[in-house]
C-alpha cells in the first residue's frame, strides 16, 4: 500500500526532504497499528507529507495485491483512511 501526493496535473511536488509519499513499510505507526499522516507546507512531527505550499493537491492511495477488497460491498471491507482539516493558516 502507499499514499502519494500530486498536484492537479499529476506531477510530484518538489520539497526539501524529497518526500513524495509513504509506503506501508515506511510509515510510523502508533502502538495500536494505526497511523496518521500530516499533509502540510511546514515540518510536523511524525509522518509529514510536505505540500510545498501549493493550495490544491491530490492524495492517491494505492493498494497493491491486497487480500481484502475495499469496494466489494461484502461487509468485510477495510476501513478507509479518514481525511480532516486540522487548521487553516
Amino acid at each position: 500500500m502507499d499514499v502519494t501526493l500530486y498536484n492537479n496535473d499529476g506531477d510530484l511536488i518538489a520539497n526539501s526532504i524529497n518526500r513524495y509519499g509513504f509506503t506501508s513499510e515506511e510509515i510510523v505507526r502508533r502502538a495500536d497499528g494505526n497511523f496518521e499522516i500530516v499533509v502540510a507546507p511546514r515540518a510536523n512531527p511524525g509522518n509529514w507529507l510536505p505540500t510545498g505550499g501549493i493550495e490544491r493537491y491530490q492524495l492517491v492511495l494505492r493498494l497493491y495485491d491486497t487480500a481484502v477488497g475495499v469496494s466489494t460491498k461484502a461487509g468485510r471491507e477495510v476501513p478507509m483512511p479518514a481525511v480532516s482539516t486540522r487548521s487553516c493558516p
Partner: protein
Amino acid sequence: MIRWVLLLLGGALLGGVVHLATVIILPRTATQDAYARLTPIAPVNTVVALPIPSPEKAIMPFMDPAFASAVCRYDLSEGPLKLTVPVSPAYTSVSFYTRYDVAYYAINDRAAGRRVIELDLMTAAQHEQVPEDEEITAADRLIVESPTPTGLIAIRAMAPEPGLMPAAQGAVAASRCMRQTESARTRK
C-alpha cells in the same frame, strides 16, 4: 405546441448522439497518449527502464515514486513475443495495454508463483497457428492474446523503502521481451 416538443426532443437526441460519439472517439484521436509519449524513448520489442519520476521530470502523470518501472513497446506483426521478468524481492507486476491504452491482461508475482514471470504474447491469428500438441507438451506455457498487433507492456517492481530501489530496478532491468522466431527455428 407538439411541434416544439418534437423539436426539443430531436435536439436532445442529436446532442446525445454527438456527445456519446465524441466521448468514444476521443481516446483514438489523442496525440499525447502513453504509446505516443514512449515512442521516442522506447524502441520496438525491447524492454526500456523508465526513470523514477521526480517533480521536475516524469514521463507520465501520476507515476508511483515507490516503483521501478520499465516498458516494452511491442509489435507482433513479425511474430509472437516471449516475455521474461525476474521477480524482485517485493511486489512485481506486469500489465498489458492495447495500442489505445486499454488494459487487457495483468499478472503479478504471487499469481505467477515462481521466481520468473514467463509468457508468450501473440495475436489471436498467431495463437490459432500454434500446433495443438505443442500446447499440450508445454502445459505450463502461458499464452496471452493481444487484441491489437501493437501495444505496451508495463513492468513494475515495488521498492517498499528507498533502500530496496536498486534491487527493484535490477529486476526490472533484467526483463526481456523478444521475438520468438529465432528460438523456434533452432528447435526445428
